């Protein structure tokens, strides 16, 4: 079995076949010296057309799979590409260092920032080390500690969200995972420095919003952001976790939907076929979006910034008023 078969999604298979053909021709011609650039160009055109076609028709469930793609760039992959320097800072000074929540001081084009984000693991061992990107109370408390430092020294905060959910183990419950998330949101709502939060892959409910209270909230094009994982929703509503596909439709978890609902400020475009097909380009897009928003936010006074942040979340939510109903009736 080719090594990358497990990491190819069903709807990516026709693309992967063309990729393999192209790679095969390149391998042969490298040995034989034969010139087949035209063949390669034709195949590449075919592949890109197919990519465009497939990616124009992705369902919310396809997007869910893409957001969880095993080859998808993770928080530290982006950090390596967008920061010219990054020094990790560990621990919550209370209990432990959470490997699912990373952070530290970073420099982006010479601009010093505090960086916080959830980190998933790539291989089995790494995934366990990172607890599958599910942070524990100590992760949120570490995040709060780093953000406090950022505010103290007048540096902006950049949060990368990529988590299936916060950790729901007995230990997390014992140490107050709910309190940690609630406190973190409360803390962020009054933090006296600009905050930019970006959903890179999975924006999993409370685990995501726990570091997601930003002046600007952005999403990578093929990321998802949801109040509950589609499978969990299906398990509760229909008692059938296999109905994730239907739940993904109903929950409106794509970046487009979040933009329409007014939850996020911008969708950051990904390269054709998803961020994993061209990580450098994805990182460039991410960096230029962050830079643009930071430039805007740094012009605001702290009181204006905090006022806007409060109003931003204050306005979110849907309800009707009885009077309005009567008027329209």
């Amino acid at each position, binding site marked *: 079995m080719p090594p990358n078969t497990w990491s190819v999604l069903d709807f990516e298979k026709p693309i992967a076949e063309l990729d393999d053909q192209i790679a095969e021709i390149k391998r042969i011609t490298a040995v034989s010296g034969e010139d087949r650039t035209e063949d390669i160009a034709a195949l590449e055109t075919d592949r890109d057309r197919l990519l465009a076609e497939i990616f124009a028709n992705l369902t919310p469930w396809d997007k869910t799979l893409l957001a969880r793609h095993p080859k998808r760039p993770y928080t530290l992959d982006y950090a390596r590409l967008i920061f010219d320097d990054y020094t990790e800072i560990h621990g919550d000074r209370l209990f432990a260092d959470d490997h699912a929540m990373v952070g530290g001081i970073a420099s982006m084009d010479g601009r010093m920032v505090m960086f916080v984000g959830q980190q998933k693991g790539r291989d089995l061992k790494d995934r366990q080390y990172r607890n599958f990107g599910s942070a524990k109370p100590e992760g949120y408390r570490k995040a709060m500690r780093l953000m406090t430092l950022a505010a103290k020294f007048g540096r902006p905060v950049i949060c990368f969200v990529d988590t299936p959910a916060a950790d729901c183990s*007995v230990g*997390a*419950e*014992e140490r107050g995972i709910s309190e940690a998330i*609630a406190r973190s949101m409360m803390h962020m709502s009054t933090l006296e420095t600009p905050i930019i939060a970006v959903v890179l892959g999975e924006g999993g409910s409370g685990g995501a919003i*726990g570091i997601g209270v930003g002046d600007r909230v952005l999403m990578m094009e093929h990321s998802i952001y949801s109040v509950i994982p589609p499978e969990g929703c299906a398990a509760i509503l229909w008692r059938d976790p296999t109905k994730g596909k239907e739940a993904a439709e109903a929950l409106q978890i794509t970046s487009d939907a979040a933009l329409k609902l007014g939850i996020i400020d911008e969708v950051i475009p990904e390269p054709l076929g998803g961020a994993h097909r061209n990580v450098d380009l994805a990182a460039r897009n991410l960096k230029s979006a962050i830079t643009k928003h930071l430039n805007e936010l740094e012009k605001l006074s702290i009181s204006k910034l905090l006022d806007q942040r409060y109003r931003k979340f204050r306005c979110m939510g849907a309800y009707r008023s009885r009077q309005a*109903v009567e008027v329209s009736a």
Partner: protein
Amino acid sequence: MTQWFGGKASRKAARKSADALPDGLWTKCPKCNEILFNKELEKNLRVCNKCGYHYRLGALERINMTVDDGTFIEMDSDLLPSDPLEFPEYASKVNRDTAKTGLSDAIVTGTADIGGIKVVIGVADFAFMGGSMGGVVGEKVVRAMEAAIDAKLPVVMFTASGGARMQEGLLSLMQMPKTCAAAARLNKAGLPYIVVFTDPTMAGVLASYASVGDFIFSEPGALVGFAGQRVGQQAQVVRQPENFQRAEFQLEHGMIDRIVPRREVRSILTKVLQFCGFDKEENDAA
């Protein structure tokens, strides 16, 4: 973030006892099976006099039990849920629970006196879509806190919820930061924020405005936790302590200030409000 709890058996028991109450003479305690006369049960604030089991209460029932007679004035009763995602079966569930409870959503807010001290109070109702927090609940909580800031009043919240209302998708998730941001303002205004957990207080509600009170109390035996059983089971199979996610477990781990039986809630609230510098005279003067 939304869970429904208690398994089929206890849900059935809760439904059965609720059905039995209006016309029946007696009801059976779902915990100890004691036969309880409804009149006695009412007199005992719907707590089993044998085992201390605390029945779940409707919001209005709890308000009547908690505040000084005739002092409750409801706020924002005009807010109704909407269906922003046109989520399957949501509208019909709202209609069903509106008919069942007589409420427009899962929380009732207003002003009232407790021991002669004026407060802003919010009481959640689990019978309305599992007490889940959607746009109406989030908005009412925030308006209650903002009203308290304007009038310089303390806030008392009784929570009962399965979590965020998933039928409103991301919009309901955003009620978490929204309510926490309002709680931050309340805190900055130097006003007391007292939370009383009732059965159950879970997930998106526990992980937001419920957990940031200055004082956090809980009724005994209340289910209080982050991930509900159905979601938890799916996520991982682990050995759980016997009282896992009960109020007593949370007390043991330092998440709750004190477990307060129902008949002591009024006196504890009065005591805490007095500690925070609020008393009867001051309010009378104001």
